[in-house]
């Protein structure tokens, strides 16, 4: 990866991009985050849910929203997508873009994709090293404002076995990744969306978990059991739970967004069409 940047760009003060920053999350999550005053520059959001509940589709929606030109309702900012489980489907992203553009010619789509950076990682060590090396990229691209990691829990079982008997050792790489992600988000004023998979059942009689119980009364309706390292639990500011209506007649998905400090809960419904996620109703 050849990174070119000038010294002037390297030392650009972060506040230059703050207006773009605070605009990102508000249009994307219309009602969810509007009531909190800390405006989401430097924000870390976690998407959590079982398989098939629309987390990756929501990431395509956010990506499209960011890379589309302003004339088409986008934000014209750059996005870095880190794919850890080979899930990313370029054809799907291009389909979403084409459906959202008023005139979808190849030139416009190419320009949008020029604002999109994709990185694959196949182990947690590789993820950590990639993050270290990407710091130079954030320096050199002041319009790179959205960082996506899909998903952060992909190496969970492999890490647990590689760490032997010591829980600290098992979690050490992910802990370093979480701390470095927090540092990147703060220094370069990014918004980070990370997905974690629901691989643990909520019942208590299952296998031992390395993290202490972070259960909360409002988690009762949601199938959530924290299993990633404490360092990650601490850096997350919003947790968004995805679920799907299981009945055959409905193809509706829902998400519940929880702001962890204020414990505000918001629920939204959406469907997934050819052009990606479409929100159906707002419940405040």
């Amino acid at each position, binding site marked *: 990866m050849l990174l070119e940047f000038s010294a002037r760009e390297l030392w650009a003060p972060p506040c230059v991009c703050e207006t773009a920053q605070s605009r990102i999350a508000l249009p994307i999550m219309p009602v969810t985050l509007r009531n909190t005053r800390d405006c989401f520059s430097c924000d870390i959001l976690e998407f959590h849910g079982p398989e098939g509940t629309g987390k990756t589709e929501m990431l395509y929606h956010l990506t499209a929203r960011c890379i589309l030109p302003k004339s088409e309702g986008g934000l014209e900012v750059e996005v870095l997508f880190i794919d850890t489980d080979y899930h990313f489907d370029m054809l799907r992203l291009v389909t979403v873009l084409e459906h959202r553009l008023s005139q979808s010619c190849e030139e416009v789509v190419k320009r949008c994709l020029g604002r999109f950076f994709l990185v694959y990682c196949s182990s947690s060590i590789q993820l950590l090293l990639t993050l270290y090396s990407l710091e130079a990229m954030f320096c050199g691209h002041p319009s790179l404002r959205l960082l996506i990691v899909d998903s952060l829990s992909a190496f969970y079982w492999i890490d647990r076995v*590689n760490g032997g008997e010591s829980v600290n050792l098992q979690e050490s790489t992910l802990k370093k990744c979480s701390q470095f992600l927090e540092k990147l988000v703060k220094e370069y004023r990014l918004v980070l969306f990370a997905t974690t998979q629901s691989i643990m059942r909520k019942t208590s009689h299952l296998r031992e978990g390395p993290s202490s119980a972070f259960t909360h009364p409002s988690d009762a309706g949601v199938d959530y059991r924290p299993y990633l390292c404490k360092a990650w639990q601490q850096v997350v500011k919003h947790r968004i739970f995805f679920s799907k209506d299981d009945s055959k007649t409905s193809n509706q998905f829902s998400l519940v967004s929880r702001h962890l400090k204020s414990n505000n809960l918001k629920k939204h419904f959406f469907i997934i069409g050819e052009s990606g996620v479409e929100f159906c109703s707002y419940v405040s």
Partner: protein
Amino acid sequence: MGLLRAGLCPGLTQDVVQLLRGRGIRTVVDLVSADLEEVAQKCGLSYKAGALQRIQVVHAFDIFQMLDALQDLRSTVAQQVSGSSGTVKVVVVDSVTAVVSPLLGGQQREGLALMMQLAQELKTLARDLGLAVVVTNHMTRERDSGKLKPALGRSWSFVPSTRILLDTGEGAGASGSQRTACLIKSPRLPTGFQETVDIGTWGTLKQSPALQGHPT
């Protein structure tokens, strides 16, 4: 199981089956491991045998044999060594449940780590080498509700990008060779689309009437 019979593949008529039996070739494995040039000459078979020769069968009865086989395949394809049958395009694993389910259960993390390692191998083949990877999995019942769900648990459910549920056809008029295929997970298409297939003739029947309004 694996016995050659008429209709197993296009061109395999009863006469051909008898001819092969006369040469001591009874099962699919026999046919694939035989010297097909010789067989073709003696039995007057033509390109049909060539088609069967393009299927490479590898036995793997535990996870380590499976991982070895996949790594061998990866190095073979990566070096672009082509056998007489050309390069590999499709990898079929039948079934992944057979090698993974003995590892799961209890408090063992190693089993899950091996399963995820297998998942990574398969995904590397699919993504980096551009192969189509098809795996078969079984169904189990949920402990509390008794509902049917795919085996191998939650961690595996995130691994495949597309999932098709096969079921025996039910209802009046369903004959023994009918099966339904339902799309339950897809990165690009809406789920729920269903098709009925006749495995005797390998043709499709009418679309399920309840889902005819769905876009394909």
